[in-house]
C-alpha cells in the first residue's frame, strides 16, 4: 500500500490497513460491511461478508507471525464485491489453509470452512516467508 497504484477507472476501490490485533477486527468487518451495503447486497449477504472478512483477519492474527498490519482491499466489480486480505507474516503453512472436517468436534479450524461456505470464489496464495493473500468474491444476485 506504500506505492500509489493506478486502477482502472471503472472499478471503485476501498482500501483499509488495520493493526494485526484482535481489537481491530470489528472495525475491519464493519468497514467492509459498509462497502457491501453501498453495493446493495442484502442484509444476509452483508452478514456473510462480515463474517468472512473477520475470519480472514482472525487467521492472519493467529497464524501470521510478525505481520504488524493486515491490508484489506475491496473492489466493486460489476459482478459483485472482491475482497483481498493480505498479511506479511511468516510461518503460515499452506496445509493450515484448508477446510476442516465438520464432523470433528474440535476447537478451531472453522474459519477457513466458513469463508469457503459463505463466499463464492476463494483463493489463497500462501508464502511461508512473506505472508498470505486471500482473495474472495461475493457475487451480486442476478
Amino acid at each position, binding site marked *: 500500500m506504500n506505492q500509489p497504484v493506478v486502477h482502472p477507472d471503472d472499478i471503485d476501490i476501498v482500501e483499509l490497513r488495520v493493526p494485526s490485533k*484482535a*481489537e481491530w*477486527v*470489528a472495525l475491519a468487518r464493519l468497514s467492509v460491511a459498509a462497502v457491501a451495503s453501498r453495493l446493495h447486497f442484502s442484509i*444476509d449477504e452483508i*452478514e456473510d461478508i*462480515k*463474517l468472512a472478512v*473477520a*475470519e480472514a*483477519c*482472525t487467521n492472519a*492474527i*493467529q497464524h501470521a507471525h510478525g505481520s504488524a498490519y493486515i491490508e484489506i482491499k475491496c473492489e466493486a466489480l460489476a459482478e459483485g464485491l472482491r475482497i483481498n486480505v493480505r498479511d506479511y507474516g511468516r510461518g503460515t503453512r499452506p496445509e493450515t489453509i484448508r477446510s476442516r472436517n*465438520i*464432523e470433528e*468436534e*474440535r*476447537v*478451531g*479450524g*472453522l*474459519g477457513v*470452512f*466458513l469463508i469457503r*461456505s*459463505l463466499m463464492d470464489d476463494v483463493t489463497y496464495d500462501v508464502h511461508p516467508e512473506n505472508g498470505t493473500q486471500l482473495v474472495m468474491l461475493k457475487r451480486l444476485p442476478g
Partner: protein
Amino acid sequence: MDIKVNVREAQGDCYVVDLGGEIDVYTSPKVKDAIGELIDRGVYHLVINLEKVRYIDSTGLGVLIGGLKRVREHGGSVNLVCTNPQIKKIFDITGLVKIFGIFESEDAAMKALV
C-alpha cells in the same frame, strides 16, 4: 464492540449463561473464562442463551465447543438458546446443530438438559 456475560443459577444443578453483543476473537476470551469458571466449580449442565448475541465467529463457536467437550467428560451437557436466523445459519453451515441442542426458548433448553 461489546460483550455482556451474565451467569445465573437455575433449577437443580443447572446454570444459565446469558450472552449479549458480539463474540469474536477479541471478546471470546471473556466468554471462555465465564464458562471455564463454572466448569471448574463443578457445574456440568449449562444453558447458554444466545438470544441477545448479534454476531458470532469461529472463535466464539470454538469456545462453545470447548465448553461442551469439557462438560461431556463429566457426563454433562450444554444446550443453546438461539433465535437469531443469521446465527442459526452459522450453526447449520458448520454442522454444529448436530452436536448442540439448540432451542427457541430458555424453558425448552432447560427442560431438555436432564
